[in-house]
């Protein structure tokens, strides 16, 4: 911004960069304000309820059921106007929902929901995508894991939430955590480089690319190791639920339809995700299809066959899942009747 010019007016020249900077900044701010406001969902005139829906990760195929519901107009039919908010791992979705940043959102698992409620947040879960949590353990073929005893003393690579989950896993099995916690983040490479013996992973996620490359790995979910938990919980605030019972019920039933479609046709759901929602992530289609297929296995259960996808089983909650939470050291558990509303997921019509 300082260009050589005549010797005169040197002082004027000193002002120019500041003016240029300010102009640039103002222009750019206006620009980003415009692009931002076009993103924000606003309710249209026909009486539909606007809902910001907070995802707990970037828009990949693990949310493809929701995207399907949106694309096929199930949400519009149910009278809700949904805006998807991208998530990351660095902030709690429960905090965003409780703080009013989103009306409904995904909370990753039961522990996080209970932790949130115990801070006084007025949250209620109205459904769950994963009947069985995808959290699990990935190992090389020469070290298969079939029980908690196989994990004792191992060097386990974790990400931020892995440590808490692993500790719970040990405690649920009546053991004190006994492993070497190596914080490696999202990268499973240390497993292959021999720096860790096992890797905390979502079995629907990290193992897939390796398997597709023909690299054999073992996986086992925490549920198979005795730690049961719903995951991908659909959560709102009690206040919003009480004020908008129809909108929440509409959102849940429309989401269920979307998930039905996605489970029935993972290829289509992935194509939709990559083509219209997660367009800017550079996702690999083959991996995403494999991932969604793996997800479909965890989304469906005997219980959902009878009660519909996303359903919450009150007995499973107050039974094994609360037992696991108690074992993990949570002393005060919220009343399941206030923390969960199991009535909003519609059962499939009898055939």
């Amino acid at each position, binding site marked *: 911004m*300082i260009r*050589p010019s005549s010797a005169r007016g040197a*002082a004027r020249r*000193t*002002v120019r*960069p500041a003016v240029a*900077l300010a102009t*640039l*900044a103002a222009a*750019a701010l206006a620009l*980003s304000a415009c692009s*931002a406001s076009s*993103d*924000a969902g606003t309710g249209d005139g026909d009486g539909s309820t606007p809902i910001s829906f907070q*995802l707990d990760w*970037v828009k*990949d195929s693990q949310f493809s059921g929701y995207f399907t519901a949106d694309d096929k107009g199930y949400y519009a039919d149910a009278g809700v106007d949904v805006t998807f*908010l*991208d998530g*990351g*791992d*660095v*902030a*709690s979705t*429960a*905090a*965003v929902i*409780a*703080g*009013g*940043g989103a009306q409904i959102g995904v909370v990753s698992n039961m522990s*996080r929901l209970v*932790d*949130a409620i*115990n*801070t*006084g*947040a*007025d949250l209620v879960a109205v459904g769950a995508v994963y009947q069985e949590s995808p959290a699990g353990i990935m190992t090389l073929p020469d070290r298969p894991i079939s029980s908690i005893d196989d994990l004792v003393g191992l060097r386990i*690579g974790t990400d*931020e939430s892995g*440590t*808490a989950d692993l500790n719970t896993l040990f405690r649920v099995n009546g053991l004190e955590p006994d492993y070497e*916690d*190596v*914080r*490696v*983040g*999202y*990268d499973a*490479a*240390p497993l292959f*480089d021999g720096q860790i013996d096992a890797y905390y992973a979502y079995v629907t*996620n*990290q193992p897939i*690319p390796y398997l597709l490359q023909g690299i054999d790995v073992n996986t086992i979910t925490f549920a198979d190791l005795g730690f049961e938990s719903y995951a991908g919980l659909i959560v709102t605030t009690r206040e919003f639920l009480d004020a908008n019972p129809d909108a929440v019920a509409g959102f849940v039933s429309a989401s269920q339809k979307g998930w039905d479609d996605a489970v029935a046709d993972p290829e289509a759901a992935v194509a939709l995700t990559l083509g219209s929602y997660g367009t*800017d*992530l*550079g996702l*690999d289609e083959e991996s995403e299809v494999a991932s969604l297929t793996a997800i479909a296995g965890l989304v469906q259960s005997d219980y959902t066959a009878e009660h519909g996808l996303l359903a919450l089983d009150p007995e499973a909650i107050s039974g094994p899942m609360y037992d696991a939470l108690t074992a993990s050291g949570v002393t005060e558990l919220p009343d399941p009747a206030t923390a969960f509303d199991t009535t909003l997921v519609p059962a499939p019509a009898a055939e």
Partner: protein
Amino acid sequence: MRSPSGALSRIVLPIAGVVVLIAFWQLAGTTQLLGRSVPPPTEVLAALAERGDVLWRATLATSQRALVGGLIGYAIGLVLASITAWFPRSTTPLVRTTVLINAIPIVAIGPVLMTGAARPFIPEIFAALSVLFSTTLATSDGFRTVSRAGRDVFRVFGATRLQRFVRLEAPSALPMAADALRLAVPAAILGAILGEWFGAERGLGVVMVSSMRNVQYGQLWAAALITVLVSVVFYALATLLEKSATRRFGRTGETPSAVPALSRGLATVIGIAIPLALVVAWQLWVLLGRVPLIVAPQPLQVVAALGDGALDLLAAAGLTTLSALGGLLCGALVGLALAVVVTLVPWLASMLSPLALVIPTVPIVVFIPVIGGMLGYGMQTVFASCVLMAFFPLYVLALSGLRARPLGSDDLFSVYGAGRVKRLVRLALPASVPSLLVAIRLAAANCFLIALSAEWLMGEGGLGRVFSERRVMLDTAGSWAAVAVAIVLSVLAYAGAALLEKKLLARWGA
């Protein structure tokens, strides 16, 4: 100190440096010398070709955020620095406030911003916050390089305050303001990327986290490479500005005059009043905004958490201090050594310059698997990250400092036939002391933040790890307590460096 052929040193050698770097990278990638998370450049190129559209949109989005946020932060920094020029007595309280604000880790602010109207602008806000402090500090120092004689001239000719500012102080501050611009480039880009992790539809940060989790190493490195290229381009522009500012407005090696001293009583009052005001504002915000505990705790809840986990926090603080201060020291030595080498051996400098620029601009998340792969995961990797991040400001300001000489002194050394080394040891190094001390002060203010984020991402212990574990469990009071300890340590590190600077400058003869 010019190499025989300008074109050779300016064009051929940097290219040679890049070629050597790429050759080594290809070797490491194909042999998996540095672990399997380092893909060979050919794989990265393939990803660039295949995902060109995605990466291009990501680049535009992130660049725009970094530019907007960075320029806003830079402009605010210039305004704050100007206030210290107009009202010198405001220097201490203003700089202290920016030190305090700078010490707040942005990972702790993010969740708070996510619930509010500022949410779409988190990357811009982070970019702005990342450059605010160094800009304010360096430019404020720049304003104080105005000589007393210059001030006298303006007084006896009846200059107004505005005239003195526009015609004397601003031109004098420009070289350091340009330095601040250079420092701001990688900071703004990293700030924007970090902000994107809090949820953005597109951007290089988004591509990076998604690629990492989906084991798309080629794409991950392609995004990282673009980040580096964007940094390099902006940095080169900032360097051009800096060079032109230095040429036009002179860099005489003039030491910033002392900050006008406040009376001990007033300084104490301000020292207590600023943090107190922030705490009161925080309390009011929580109370009036009905902010739930899961978003932000109240001050007293944090105090209680500090008391509950005092021993854990103390142990963690010890570990973090080790990484932060050790990293600062090693980073400072590495940065100074590199600047000296670059000054002494111009052809090597030309070869190294791309590398020296690349290291600090590579987003640390991409480096973690690499450093982890080489050093193993844990404290050593945290330490290495601290060194890598601390070395940059030292390098930049040392390089500028080494070019500053008292008027005519270069001629003096020529007269006595002093060689390159003598000139460096007896002239350039002593003359660069003020610049170096400013750099150490800047790096000291940030060393705990760097240690905190490194521990957060990959630490076995330390405040960052404690913060991370408590954050995941939604123990906001507990995680803010860890943050509070880090803030105190940051401020202490800055105060310590400032004290050191004062003592050494007094000896240096300022």
